[in-house]
């Protein structure tokens, strides 16, 4: 089980203490207050992990009910009113309470200070505040969803949401605003920490890609989220006081709503995927035992995805009534944003070339990410192509596209990172066979669920349909069957990861033999992360070249 290869990794001088059951951040204090009032980034990461897991399964339950309903053309189990509330619930919870926070608040919070060689983030109390804001927001929105639910879709288009909706739009909006403030605080903390708390010798070009990705995602957190917050305030004002900012019947402009909404929500999807790409950029080198191909390109691609991502939002509105000129401009920028993502894919593959590839669970998840993200990204090109989008917009093709990226990509990356850093976080190894099995089940279940949806969309089946014409049934049944398999795949890690907390083998400091400062401290780390501040003298991913390996073994 142990993968201690014992390479001298990145020339770091630090006090690495072997496992001898010493005090660590989990055992240091165990009262409830020490958890709920903690300012230790590692504990806050755990608090967040528990919260987003809860939201993930809540959003997943909604999806399960939706897919069961779609087994028959007339709706198998729920009436349209309920179905509409289910998909709104699924979208709202998954976007704002799972995907947007996901990797940054869990793996980011835990690993970023360790990777920086720091003792905590720049503003630990603000970190704790962000968790409380998140929980308050989650409570408010969940209350809105349970008190009769919302039937507007997660996109809240007006005038449907301001004038015709049934349900607690304002309450849900408030919860989302709170979650938004939480993510602004998190992003701010990461940016400042990466600027100010890097260990001595760690220049920007010696930072692991995970940090570049978290930094880029944080820029989006900080600059895009306030626009959403203001939009939801204006929407609430309109709904509550019945005035016409966005409702044309009262003199407003519905397209203004869409522009402001997508100005945030498109960059938001880059918030979701950039950290996932960062995780994959850590795992591929580690499990190929080879330095990352084209490090500087990958680093700057993360930044350019964040920047270009701010200039593509109108591609959600190609048939909404925008001018042909705008549509053309935004189609061009949408093609542009695909380029850095594709460069990353090629660089990951380049990393594997001539590497020494190991197939532990994190690597299987990461390979799955590359496969599924590539499919998702390519179909994004279809949607960026104007005339093609006219046919595919608001159909199941779009649903398949973004699920390939968000679920096939992002969630796989989250699981990859979770398994990769599990030994560090918990001090235990997960059971490897179950890890690989779950990764494969998730991959195949995912393909079965979402690949048929590309075809459904091309054939014209619209999204957000509770019932559908009978000729779409076969593809829907395939998709729902896949969803069942996928559900099993997601429940497995819940089971074996929790099991490993009690019965898993004790993990060494560096089970994978990976580079990175986080592996230079104990598993689990002590409260202060490092006994002495590490000093960095080499770049990241300083794995030995094949020539060096050959020399050593002869």
């Amino acid at each position, binding site marked *: 089980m142990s993968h201690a290869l014992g390479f001298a990794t990145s020339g770091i001088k630090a006090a690495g203490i072997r496992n001898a059951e010493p005090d660590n951040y989990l055992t240091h204090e165990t009262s409830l207050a020490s958890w709920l009032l903690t300012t230790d980034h590692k504990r806050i990461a755990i608090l967040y992990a528990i919260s987003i897991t809860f939201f993930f399964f809540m959003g997943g339950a909604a999806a399960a009910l939706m897919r069961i309903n779609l087994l028959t053309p007339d709706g198998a189990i729920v009436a349209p009113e309920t179905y509409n509330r289910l998909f709104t619930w699924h979208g709202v919870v998954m976007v704002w309470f799972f995907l947007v926070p996901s990797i940054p608040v869990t793996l980011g919070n835990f690993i970023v200070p360790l990777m920086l060689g*720091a003792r905590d*983030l720049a503003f630990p109390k603000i970190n704790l505040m962000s968790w409380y804001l998140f929980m308050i927001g989650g409570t408010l929105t969940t209350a809105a969803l349970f008190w009769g639910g919302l039937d507007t879709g997660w996109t809240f288009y007006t005038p449907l949401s301001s004038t015709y909706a049934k349900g607690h739009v304002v309450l849900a909006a408030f919860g989302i605003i709170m979650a938004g403030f939480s993510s602004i605080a998190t992003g701010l903390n990461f940016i400042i920490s990466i600027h*100010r*708390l890097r260990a001595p010798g760690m220049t920007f070009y010696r930072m692991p890609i995970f940090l570049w990705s978290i930094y880029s995602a944080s820029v989006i957190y900080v600059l895009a*989220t306030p626009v959403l917050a203001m939009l939801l*305030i204006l929407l609430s004002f309109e709904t509550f006081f019945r*005035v*016409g*900012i966005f409702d044309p019947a009262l003199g407003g402009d519905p397209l*203004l709503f869409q522009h402001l909404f997508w100005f945030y929500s498109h960059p938001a999807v880059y918030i979701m995927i950039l950290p996932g790409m960062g995780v994959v950029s850590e795992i591929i080198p580690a499990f190929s035992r080879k330095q990352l191909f084209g490090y500087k390109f990958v680093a700057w691609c993360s930044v350019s995805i964040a920047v270009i991502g701010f200039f593509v939002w109108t591609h959600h509105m190609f048939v909404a009534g925008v001018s042909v000129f705008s549509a053309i401009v935004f189609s061009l920028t949408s093609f542009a944003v695909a380029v850095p993502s594709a460069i990353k894919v090629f660089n990951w593959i380049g990393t594997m070339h001539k590497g020494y590839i190991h197939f532990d669970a994190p690597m299987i998840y990461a390979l799955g990410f590359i496969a599924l993200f590539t499919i998702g990204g390519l179909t994004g090109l279809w949607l960026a192509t104007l005339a093609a989008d006219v046919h595919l917009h608001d159909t199941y093709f779009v649903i398949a596209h973004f699920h390939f990226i968000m679920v096939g990509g992002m969630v796989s990356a989250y699981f990859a990172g979770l398994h990769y850093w599990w030994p560090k976080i918990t001090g235990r190894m997960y059971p490897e066979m179950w890890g690989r099995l779950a990764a494969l089940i998730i991959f195949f279940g995912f393909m079965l669920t979402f690949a048929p949806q590309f075809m459904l969309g091309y054939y014209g089946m619209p999204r957000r349909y509770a019932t559908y014409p009978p000729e779409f049934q076969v593809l829907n049944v395939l998709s729902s069957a896949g969803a069942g398999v996928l559900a099993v795949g997601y429940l497995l890690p819940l089971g074996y990861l929790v099991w490993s907390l009690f019965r898993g083998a004790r993990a060494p400091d560096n089970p994978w033999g990976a580079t990175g400062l986080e592996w230079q401290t104990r598993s689990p780390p002590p409260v202060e992360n490092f006994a002495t501040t590490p000093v960095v003298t080499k770049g990241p991913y300083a794995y030995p070249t094949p020539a060096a390996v050959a020399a050593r073994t002869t």
Partner: protein
Amino acid sequence: MSEAQLHFQYEDLEHQSDTALDGMWLFLAQEVLFFGALFFAWMLNRHFHPLGYHRAAQQTDLLIGSINTVLLITSSAVYAAGVGFIRLDDRRRLVQCCVITALLGLAFLGFKGLEWHEDLAKHMNPGRYFGLSGADAGGAQLFWVFYWVATVLHGVHMAVGIGLVAWLLHRVCKGAYSAAWHTPVEVVGLYWSFVDVVWLVLYPLIYLVGRAG
């Protein structure tokens, strides 16, 4: 205790100080986008409803608005002086400056409250009971929607600012700051100046545009 507490993740006080200032600047950048989205929507609607906005703007109280502008600019100047004083280790003057700043801030809010009372008496509340009617009432109502959202949000930010200044006063009186360490004073100063700058954009938008002619 006149030495600042060095938090464990920092090397020295200067490191901690720079980091805190960076954090506040970044927070303010985010606030620019927050209010910026509002201003964008406001200006866009002005383009579509010029007559309504013109009519609505006549209902604002230029006198109170101008008094408030003077109060706020003065408070920023006073606070800046306070920062200057603590750099010279003059705690007494810093206390005086903070007190004056807070009082000016409270006066601002007081006048604001008076103004809101007046606006409500004129039925400038958007919705069914809006006080203006006729062809441009829709546009006028939109002006007032933005007026309320902007001034309430600004007022909330002011209240937070006054709270921060009060907290600073408490800390100065306990001797927490000196020429060597007074970063929280500077951080709050950045925030206060920002709230001032937002007002400097709101003032012409609310009171000046559309008034001539």
